[in-house]
């Protein structure tokens, strides 16, 4: 399947990556090449095959549903590009 410029623009937006308009045709071409490679999978008969969920099947461990961690707001915020008054700061979300 070949990817058109409109689809490339939509995917970039879904991925929240700004792509300049003049980059879109080349990007669409790269996607098309990669998808052509991926589409070899259509040659495989996958009837009655369950999709893999876990590569090393095991029962996940359980533990008591209690708080085991936390209480260090300063550490959580220490790497934030913009932290104010104990919160992460972002541009205005609601008008």
């Amino acid at each position, binding site marked *: 399947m070949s990817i058109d410029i409109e689809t490339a623009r939509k995917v970039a937006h879904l*991925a929240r990556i700004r*792509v300049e308009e003049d980059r879109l045709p080349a990007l669409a071409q790269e996607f098309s090449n990669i998808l052509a*490679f*991926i589409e070899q999978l259509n*040659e*495989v008969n*996958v009837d009655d095959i369950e*999709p893999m969920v876990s590569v090393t099947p*095991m029962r996940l461990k359980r533990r008591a549903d209690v708080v085991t961690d936390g209480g260090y707001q300063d550490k959580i915020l*220490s790497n934030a590009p913009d932290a104010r008054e104990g919160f992460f700061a972002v541009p205005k979300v609601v008008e």
Partner: protein
Amino acid sequence: MSDLNKLTISGARDALAKGETTAQALTEACLAEIEGAGALGAFVHKTPEIALDQAKAADARIKAGEATAMTGIPLGIKDLFCTRGVPSQAASRILEGFKPEYESTVTQKLFDAGAVMLGKLNMDEFAMGSSTETSVYGNAVNPWKVDERQLTPGGSSGGSASAVAADLCLAATGTDTGGSIRQPAAFAGITGLKPTYGRVSRWGIVAFASSLDQAGPMTKSVRDAAIMLSAMAGHDPKDSTSRDLAVPDFEAALTGDIKGTVIGIPREYRLDGMPAEIEKLWDEGKAMLADAGARMIDISLPHTKYALPAYYVIAPAEASSNLARYDGVRFGRRARLAAGDGITEMYEKTRAEGFGDEVQRRVMVGTYVLSAGFYDAYYNRARKVRALIKRDFEEAFDQGVDAILTPATPSAAFGLGEMADADPVAMYLNDVFTVTVNLAGLPGISVPAGLDVEGLPLGLQLIGKPWEEGDLLNTAYALERAAGFVSKPEKWW
């Protein structure tokens, strides 16, 4: 003792135990070597103060008679591992300035065993690449050189491979999602082990594709890989996919006796257009193992051809989800915003300037294959093919095969920049022999086995049964002894 940086882990352990050297002397020798090796681009954040503090503590521990095999051993740590208070960027611009407040389980275990961290090692951005050319720090360079060209040390653990091959450290950590330990190990003439999925905790390692990622040792010998794996492995309550199994003493498994071991030779790994040298090396490997008493049998892994296409659905899909966390809010870099920019512009600009081309491409491919209408056609189909690939291996093991021998890579190291104009898919082919192992969750090891006509190292890969790293390492040990690979790159840097 001279040339302390050239020691293996086992050699250093024995010298430390006999009092012939100290952890401090070992560490200083490595730090001096790193200072002179800027041209290799291997170490991207140096931590000499931490290293010397850890070395002093190690010497005290050795004196007190409380040493482990890793006590006082100077290591390089791939930049993908979060290390407390030390930049941990996954070689990405988007994690510029990020200093974790926590320590990854693997580095914590190594430190608890007394190991010394010399610094952080170069890699492909977010471990996406096969040449360490997608790093924000610039290229890592292979210490092997046969003409005026600079060669890639492979990727994504290229800095690790370069540092170990050039004796800047005794060993290094790596991670392997599609071949990122084994391909660079082969390109640099060292040993690289990807353990069974779940053997080593992924907690605190920057995630790329969580169902495929696994950390492992990159070392100068098979024995060192065994020693270091014992220190890295084990159940971790913080990683729900880490298996609650006792960690054996892997070094004790190295008897070198492989009489009666059955080695499978998969016919699908003989590729059209494969260089004659790779084929020859593979034949030599078979002969060496047969001489050591193993029995070769031909096997078929019929879905091999579809491993790379399946990988290039599953890995980008998981990456697009894992990398959604880089949003310019909680850590790392945020783009400079224009007046009136809202939160969507913040995300889009931050991710556009923070991620390099290959990472952007994979995040977008992943987004596409997971998007409404395509999920079944691409993602679910790839997961079904993955199940078939795993079944191929299970059927081979059910036939009585103990390990599988293949080439590690389809070529020797190539020149930096040589793939710059190639289609991204051409670079993906580097992982053709290694990626099946990640998809099936198996352990695999690359062992240096010879030189090509130009004098560049080539590796052979052994693939083992799940959780049988001990047997796998023992077969690798027999192969290592038979191959007798002792070549080292000549120092030019």
